[in-house]
């Protein structure tokens, strides 16, 4: 929908996207009904969404090809009860209400970008909090609950409040051994677990090219959910243009913020000054430089999830591990974020490398991140994970402790058996 009024003041990226989906020029704190482009539910949220849909008297959806029902939390199904819940989704799709993306295809937040469901300027709602990930591709991804999603697929629209925007300026480049996850954790640490509640977080680079890979941008936008943010959004650049081209979308137009857009807070990050970070139990915002935690014994590692389960992440981990074996007794779990990534890793030998080291390789899924799949730590275990949450009991045992870090830091701990600065391992 075009905006007919001439903008009266500068707009942020998010203000522009919500405006273009409501037909009015909107500013922060406005409340509007806006159309949606794509809606997504997982096997964690989909069955409940379908129950609300029925109770609402739903008889149609706005576009079944844009209602995605993704099975990623319970892969393969661990018991008969979960299998029946997944059947609820299959039956809903069979009635023409949506499109099933089945067990083993991968995690929703990897699949929507990978399969071309995300476009610049789109408004995407996902019944999963880490839907903020889609902002990496210059679109507006918002996490919502199951009843909101049911209402959204019936209406093709939903009500939104227009968030205030925090702007993060990135300058310089990260040093070797420091990755997008370290930037993400650093930001969660300084913003805090509710510091961006109801806000959008918009990123901008000093140079024309944002100094982050597309995978890294997805990691950063993913983690911004842990600040309470409604969404996180990256600008477009040549690297993103190239990404869209590789998935068959050569003609895209990015949404840019106006020069005189209004922000509620500015955060300046000099990337060259960043060091590896680690989030300690039991709050994601409990972030310290990894040097403060070095030496803590670790029994288990998780490499994967929607935060860090991509090729780049596994390549960095293998690079850090080199020829070294896993520390004695260390359990390393590998979960590629999608079947495409899994297949690629099979073809390029990465799976064999992990397997030869004694790692456990799980099918593309959320893995043990939220205790929904196999891979539960034992009592007293310290786990280092590339995931995005470390709450008590998150991985299924309230007597374990979860540290969140970059794939490089997970790999470093896997070969030493304790928290280790990854910059020292490769020497």
């Amino acid at each position, binding site marked *: 929908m075009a905006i007919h009024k001439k903008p009266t003041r500068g707009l942020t990226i998010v203000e522009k996207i919500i405006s273009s989906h409501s037909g*009015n020029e909107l500013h922060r704190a406005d409340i509007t009904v806006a159309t949606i482009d794509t809606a997504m539910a997982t096997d964690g949220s989909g069955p409940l969404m379908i129950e609300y849909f029925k109770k609402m008297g739903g008889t149609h959806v706005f576009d079944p090809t844009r209602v995605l029902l993704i099975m990623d939390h319970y892969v393969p199904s661990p018991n008969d009860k979960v299998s029946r819940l997944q059947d609820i989704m299959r039956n809903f799709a069979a009635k023409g209400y949506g499109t099933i993306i089945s067990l083993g295809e991968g995690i929703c937040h990897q699949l929507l970008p990978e399969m071309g469901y995300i476009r610049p300027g789109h408004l995407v709602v996902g019944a999963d909090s880490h839907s903020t990930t889609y902002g990496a591709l210059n679109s507006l991804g918002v996490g*919502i609950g199951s009843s909101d999603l049911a209402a959204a697929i019936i209406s093709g629209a939903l009500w939104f409040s227009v968030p205030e925007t925090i702007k993060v300026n990135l300058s310089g480049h990260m040093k070797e051994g420091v990755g997008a996850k370290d930037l993400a954790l650093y930001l969660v640490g300084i913003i805090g677990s509710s510091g961006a509640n109801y806000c959008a977080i918009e990123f901008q680079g000093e140079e024309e090219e944002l100094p982050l890979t597309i995978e890294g941008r997805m990691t950063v936008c993913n983690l911004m959910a842990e600040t309470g943010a409604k969404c996180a959004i990256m600008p477009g650049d040549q690297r993103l243009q190239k990404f869209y081209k590789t998935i068959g979308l050569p003609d895209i137009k990015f949404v840019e913020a106006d020069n005189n857009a209004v922000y509620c807070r500015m955060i300046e990050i000099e990337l060259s000054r960043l060091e590896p970070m680690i989030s300690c139990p039991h709050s994601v915002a409990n972030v310290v430089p990894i040097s403060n935690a070095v030496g803590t014994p670790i029994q288990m590692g998780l490499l994967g999830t929607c935060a860090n389960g991509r090729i780049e992440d596994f390549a960095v981990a293998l690079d850090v591990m080199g020829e070294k074996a896993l520390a004695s007794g260390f359990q390393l779990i590998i979960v590629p974020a999608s079947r495409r990534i899994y297949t690629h890793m099979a073809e390029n030998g990465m799976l064999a490398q992990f397997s030869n080291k004694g790692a456990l390789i799980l099918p593309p899924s959320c893995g043990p991140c939220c205790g929904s799949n196999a891979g539960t730590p034992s009592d007293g275990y310290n786990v280092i994970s590339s995931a995005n949450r470390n709450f008590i009991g998150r991985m299924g045992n309230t007597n374990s402790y979860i540290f969140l870090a970059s794939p490089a830091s997970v790999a470093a701990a896997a070969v030493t058996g304790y928290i280790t600065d990854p910059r020292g391992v490769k020497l």
Partner: protein
Amino acid sequence: MKLVGKARKVGDDINTDYIISSRRKRDTLDGKVLAQYLMEDLDTQFASTINPGDIIVAGKNFGCGSAMEIAALVVKEAGIVAVIAESFSRNFYRNGINNGIFLIVGDTSTIEGGHRIEIIADDKKFKVTDLTTGKIIACSDGLPKIMSRILQEGGLVNYMRNYGSFKPNRTNTK
């Protein structure tokens, strides 16, 4: 509308995994069944000592973490009618209202567990009184119009049944 209930005090950053753990919610959508596990990872006695009409009184960022709506549903099915918190995560704020739970942002620092709390709600504002101490609790204004309407309907299911759908109508719904 007037509600009176006993305060159940919890702390800051109560996330949805604490409200109901993933290992419980995977087996069923039945909020009544899951309600017996409410907050079990923080306090194994929490669920069994709730009386219908109790009010959760929380610190900052109640309902943070996952967007999973089962957390709001479980709070409701456990018999909790309202949550008063210093602040809410945006997902829980939407999910709670969508399930007809009164969510009030207020200064909860002086309320202790077991206090009797009175909530009087009209279209525009909430009035919260700690009946045990007689203190009036400072709280936010009422909800935005759209949320207030959803709450008045008893939740989003009834709203959708009565209004049919959300339509972008080129007017601001504030």
